[in-house]
């Protein structure tokens, strides 16, 4: 199929957001307390990208979907027990750190190398999906850097929808300032799409999908390439969790404009 896509979703794993995430100083720089022992999930932003990618592949005949993920192998395997039940996928595993404090440039280089090694990958058909942001530290630059490494210049961030056209082009709905969307038409792949939330709900777990994925997933985990990401040259001056603030005031019949004004005032005080 000439108009088919090769969708590669880059997604890492992050600690379950319900867990206590307490920054600590480790031998390799900042880390989260007991991070390896905390239950992990697929980064929620990237998870949206995965579901959208799977949906796109279903719509456009001949398309394929890969999930490229760098994380400690055992941790990745655990997360895959859930993720593999969501959508049919092929995993490309990279055994490396999933910490939010890892260097985004090195991470991007490693991920780009992993994408290049995918058997049968055709960069001219590549749609590189990922999260617009990350639940690990919200840097939101890794995906752009992977795109740069792969020489992809058409990049969209804050994507909420992709609509493929019959001529091989596709329309992208992108979030922009002022709570508005921008519609762009891209002539075709390759392109980078950093997803916001998209419009699809999280698919239910389906062990039958999982069992089908497992046939390729476990071998992929076994032959996971080692991700070379070091902390050399990276220095964090300070790491803190966001302050929790809760100031409740009950006011009746306040006009919305006034509420908005007060909120803006409160935010700009920060």
């Amino acid at each position, binding site marked *: 199929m000439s108009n088919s896509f090769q969708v590669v979703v880059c997604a890492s794993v992050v600690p379950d957001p319900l867990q206590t995430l307490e920054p600590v100083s480790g031998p390799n720089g900042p880390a989260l307390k007991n991070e390896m*022992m905390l*239950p992990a999930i697929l980064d929620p932003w990237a998870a949206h990208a995965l579901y959208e990618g799977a949906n796109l592949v279903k719509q456009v005949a001949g398309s394929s979907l890969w999930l490229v993920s760098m994380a400690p192998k055992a941790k990745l395997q655990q997360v895959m027990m859930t993720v*593999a*039940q969501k959508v049919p996928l092929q995993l490309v595993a990279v055994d490396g750190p999933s910490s939010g404090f890892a260097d985004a440039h090195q991470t991007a280089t490693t991920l780009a190398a992993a994408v290049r090694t995918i058997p049968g990958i055709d960069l001219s058909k590549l749609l590189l999906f990922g999260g617009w942001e990350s639940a690990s530290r919200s840097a939101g630059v890794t995906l752009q850097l992977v795109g740069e490494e792969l020489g992809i210049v058409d990049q969209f961030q804050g994507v909420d929808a992709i609509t493929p056209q019959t001529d091989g082009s596709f329309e992208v709905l992108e979030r922009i300032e002022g709570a508005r969307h921008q519609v762009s038409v891209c002539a075709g792949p390759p392109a980078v799409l950093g997803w916001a939330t998209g419009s699809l709900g999280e698919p239910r777990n389906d*062990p*039958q999908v999982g069992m089908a994925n497992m046939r390729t997933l*476990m071998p992929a985990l076994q032959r996971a390439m080692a991700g070379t990401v070091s902390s050399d040259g990276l220095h964090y001056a300070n790491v803190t969790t966001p302050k929790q603030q809760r100031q409740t005031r009950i006011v009746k019949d306040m006009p919305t404009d006034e509420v908005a004004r007060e909120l803006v005032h409160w935010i700009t005080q920060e």
Partner: protein
Amino acid sequence: MATSVSRVRCETLRTLPEDNVRQILWRFADRCDLQMLVQSAREVARGPVARLVAGGLRSTHEWTEQKATLLEAFDQSGITAVFMDPEQGGYLVGPKNLALALIAFELAWVDAGAATCSLAGCLALAPIHERGTPEQRARYMSLAVPPLPGTDRKPWRGAFCLTEPLPYVGVDTGILSGKLRVAEWDDGKEPLLHLEKRGRFITNMGFANFVTVAVDSADERIKGSCIVLVEEGDPGIFDRGTPTRKLVHQLSSTCDPIFNLTVPASRIIGGYTVKDGTIVPNYSHGEVIEAVFKRTRVTVALMSSAKLLSAVEPIIRYQRGRFRGSEQAKAGMLRYELGLQQRQDALHRLASLWAIGEAGASLGFAAARLYDELDSLEREKNEILDAKGVRRGKSELKFFRDVNQSALELLRQENNSPEKRKAVCYDELKADPLVQFALQDAVANVLCPAAKLWNTGTGANAMREALSLMGGYGITEDCPGFLAYKWMDTQLEATYEGPEAVQRRNLSVTMTSELFLAQFQQWILEMRRIAEHRPGTGACTLATAMQLWLWTYRHLQVATDADGGALYQSARQGVTFPLADALCWLLASRQQTLDLIELETKGPANPVLAEGLEGTLNFFSDLCHIQAARAAGEAGRICAELVFGYNRHPAWDEAGYKGCYRNDELDSLEGLIPGISACATDVVSEDGSHPVKAGPCASCHGLEAFQRLRSKLDGCLTGAQLAKDRAAEAISKVMIPEALDYPR
């Protein structure tokens, strides 16, 4: 390398045990299919199920549309299809006992009624799976399996109808009032049967499309009892009946149905043969339910354990946050950080109930795994028996007398060191599937009722304790983790599929099997060996308690009461039932210890666990020790009551005086044995006056061995409270999530 009990344990539990730990403990670390199933069941439990509970759906007895959404969730998440083999539309290959146990565990973590709703469908299919004809299996499994995406078919739901409205609401599964008669039987045609039954407390009845119904013959042309499949739409009355006004498990549908139907004889589960003009069912209802219940009871047992373990996190969070917000607890103060966990009692009690939860889960999952192994062995056994022309029932029992002897011989050989074994004989016996079946069956016959009895009974008491640790909050609908519901539900779990008395009765028979006892004897040595390498686990305490139990059992087999009546006999439930209770404590504790050893062995290979493994092992060792001490205490108390309790206490009468010293005797003996007066307790004066007490102290003649063991057991408790202190401290420091992860 041996570790020292007195070693200072620096590392302690860092986070609540997560999936990696559980997968090793319960032996499914290498089963991706089961790991996925767990995630899938968890998503349903903490999503749709938890939302229904939080939404107040437990306040109605009726089966509502909202409750029915659970069935859809079960179908879509693969829970319904677990029971089926791949050729029937399922996706799990091989035995399903562990899989079903894991589902029950995950669902019951949030609501046991939802777990029951799911399992009751399997219970309906289980008679067909275990004893059904190939045609019956093909029809009902394919109807019950959820449709593939894109196909428009509603899956059939099933119910299992055994219980009847017998007088005084008693449940004697051996006696049935449901009746089966021949309605029509034309020459050369299949007989039509008329079935009448009033069921009681039948789960899934609010929506079932087919029901497996236990009935007895009321016609001389039908022999004995059987189980018959009836379908909605069969000619006659298929009345679902009124919803049972139960106070618990409201997310499962329970009704008292009425059936008055005509069905073809091919609906008899397992088929039938016609002998001299009589329909002889191939399996009696008893044979079918025996095959079914011994598997499905394990899952019910695990429901109670899941709830107990699910209580840990909400209790910790409640205890720590108890004083936050008050004037006296400012951030940074100990009162703010630890709340109630400043107090030892709160922590000790939580450690105790956590230990019970772990032990119950260990026992239940061990039983489930054992049935997985036994399923394939049983098939092999049946093939061998068929090939040899040995029929089921008495012929099989007779055949197995020799097999059991071989199994005992294998155990004797195993007790020898490898170089002293008769190699050829040993290898032959070890490879003999019949011998292996006999050995495992003997253990399974004990583990199943033990898990059902202990997990639910002890679990119910521990759940009450869990509630009490949440103060008044615990008994409200707002209590995080739905603890009050979970506590009340446990009472029903103790009743489902045979109440506690049934399990005790079952155990009182199966635990007397020589094959079981011989293996139990080996387990004592196994615990001693573990204790040598892991002295902080309480394994040695447990070994002594097991020894005491075994001594007591053997003693009770031959001892009589004060009137000469035999002690260990079927009718004497005051003897047999408590001894069964004591055994359950020991079995649960043993399995918990074995799981700990598994974690210690396999844990280091898992890089995710490596970071905190030492602390996890230390904490779990302490929980094992706490539980071993508790089990030893319970077993010791019960055994002492049974050993001494049936002897008549001496009185201040002529017979009693014979065992006492007289004052003048002591005076004369004092010259020969100085100091004897100080040791003599029962001294009678010349005027007949005696010490102020019930009578002379009872003689322990013949029970010295018991006394030595009991005394040793008391000494074996050394260190148990230190373990509890350590566990308590660990609980006060363990990191927990910011919030409970359900309802989602």
